């Protein structure tokens, strides 16, 4: 068996990003921040896919996380990043635990479509809630971090960037460790053969439920981070196209390694940003074509490029 360097690479990337942050042009720093928020959500999507189910409604938790963080300020005047992230985790954990009771029984397209229905119902609810700005949403400003004021300070952007990097890093490490654990290993087993898993004494539904909650919490975290770094949230986050994008990126990146989702979203965001600039009328075409090429020639997603390279080595 080849040794696993994921944790080391993660460590190096973490240090590199934190060090490079101040030197980067601010728009690049923002691009990375956004890709990391996205990446965290896609990481959750990856966990689900490893378990053999795909959700077309993960925007539900992306949006819930963002609104949990955002409404704290509106309702209780709390705008501390730490508290916001915590709220996102709690809310998404509770909601996914409940919906999970139902979804754990579903598979394939039905799992995908039922979760889509739930996310669209949230979308509808938010659009009807004019108190929260309806479809326009509202602006979110994180004013403090652990009580220390950061809003308006010149290193505000870098702090938010650093927090995102750190959260993404921790998420990646946890999921990596989890996937290597007995519980985590069940994911692949379930994807391959649910029947056998039951006949080896483990509960398929419980495992799916647990993984679903985890991926929901990751999506919530991503949403809260996005809310803080973008500074604005709206119901669009729960619309089916948003969820579709997460699946899109997850397949594009591949589910082989916890690094893949982050690399994938970074590449996706970069392509999108520059395509928008240089070919505003054909950027969807570009995305679609990339997708087809990846599916045809890299069934394992972009990540399989690295695995191939390692095989070659």
């Amino acid at each position, binding site marked *: *068996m080849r040794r696993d360097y994921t944790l080391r690479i993660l460590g190096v990337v973490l240090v590199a990003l934190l060090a490079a942050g101040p030197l980067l042009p601010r728009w690049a720093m923002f691009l990375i921040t956004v890709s990391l928020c996205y990446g965290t959500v896609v990481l959750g999507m990856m966990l689900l896919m490893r378990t053999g189910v795909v959700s077309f409604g993960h925007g539900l938790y992306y949006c819930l996380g963002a609104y949990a963080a955002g409404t704290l300020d509106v309702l209780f005047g709390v705008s501390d990043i730490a508290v916001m992230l915590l709220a996102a985790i709690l809310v998404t954990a509770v909601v996914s635990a409940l919906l999970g009771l139902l979804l754990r029984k579903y598979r394939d397209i039905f799992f995908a479509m039922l979760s889509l229905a739930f996310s669209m119902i949230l979308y509808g609810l938010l659009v009807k809630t004019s108190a929260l700005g309806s479809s326009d949403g509202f602006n979110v400003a994180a004013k403090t971090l652990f009580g220390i004021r950061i809003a308006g300070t010149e290193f505000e952007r870098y702090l938010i960037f650093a927090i995102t990097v750190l959260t993404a890093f921790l998420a990646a490490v946890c999921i990596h460790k989890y996937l290597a*654990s*007995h*519980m985590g*290993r*069940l994911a*692949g*087993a379930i*994807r*391959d*053969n649910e*029947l*056998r*898993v*039951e*006949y*080896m*004494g*483990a*509960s398929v539904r419980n495992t799916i439920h647990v993984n679903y909650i985890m991926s929901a919490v990751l999506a919530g975290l991503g949403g809260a981070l996005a809310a803080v770094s973008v500074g604005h949230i709206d119901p669009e986050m729960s619309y089916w196209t948003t969820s579709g994008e997460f699946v899109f990126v997850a397949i594009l990146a591949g589910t082989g390694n916890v690094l893949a989702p982050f690399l994938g979203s970074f590449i996706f965001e970069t392509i999108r940003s520059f395509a928008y600039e240089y070919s505003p009328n054909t950027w969807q075409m570009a995305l679609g074509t990339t997708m087809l090429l990846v599916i045809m020639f890299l069934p394992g997603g972009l990540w399989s490029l690295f695995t191939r390279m390692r095989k070659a080595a």
Partner: protein
Amino acid sequence: MTVVLEAKGLNKSFGAVTAAADINVAVERDSVVGLIGSNGAGKTTFINMVTGYLKPSSGSIVFGERDITPLAPRQITRLGICRSFQIPQLFNTLSVYENLLVGVGIVASGGKKWADASRLAGTPVEAVGSILERFNLTAYRDKPAGVLPEGVRKLLDIAMAMAVKPKILLLDEPTSGVSADEKFGLMDMVMQAVRAQQVTVLFVEHDMDIVNRYTHRVLAFYEGRIIADGEPGVVLDDPEVRKFVTGDARAGGGGKHAAH
């Protein structure tokens, strides 16, 4: 000899087909029981009922003191009844090592849910290592299960059942799809493992030489009922069995048809 597994008046029918009719069996600890019968005679149905995949229309199954009839497969497995499959049920994208580690891991992390988790000797990795050796699968350790030859898949399928430390092991046609010259090797290996862990075995088999050689007792099924039960020699000489089972079985050969 103590009875570990007892089926009382099991009945099961799929529409018009009677898959089990008033089955009464008591299996003693450490015995090796062969289940014979033509296809559709109800052998696999019996195994499926014992392992909770099918619920009997009536009757009950008792394991030790406990009535396991209403339990789900995973609960029954945790009590110590494991099975292998006629068509190997593997985790095709995982390596052989991982396939076994999944099972060992479930036992290791199962805690109180397991009848006797302490039976797991050493770390999971060591446990898997010993299983690999016992079923000499070490050569295939890192191969994904999906690419293995049929014989090896069969072996792995059984090894996986053993990995979760059964007290009773049910094998559904362990040698079907295995070439004639591999059959005995495979069975020897399984039987060694079984003896080493004092596991009671029931297995469905079409090859009467295998049955003769490895079983202490044979149950002959015909149209859902047991028409003969006893020493292999006796049962195989039973005229009814000759008429309805073995003759048919020889003609039927490996019995690769879909099980019922």
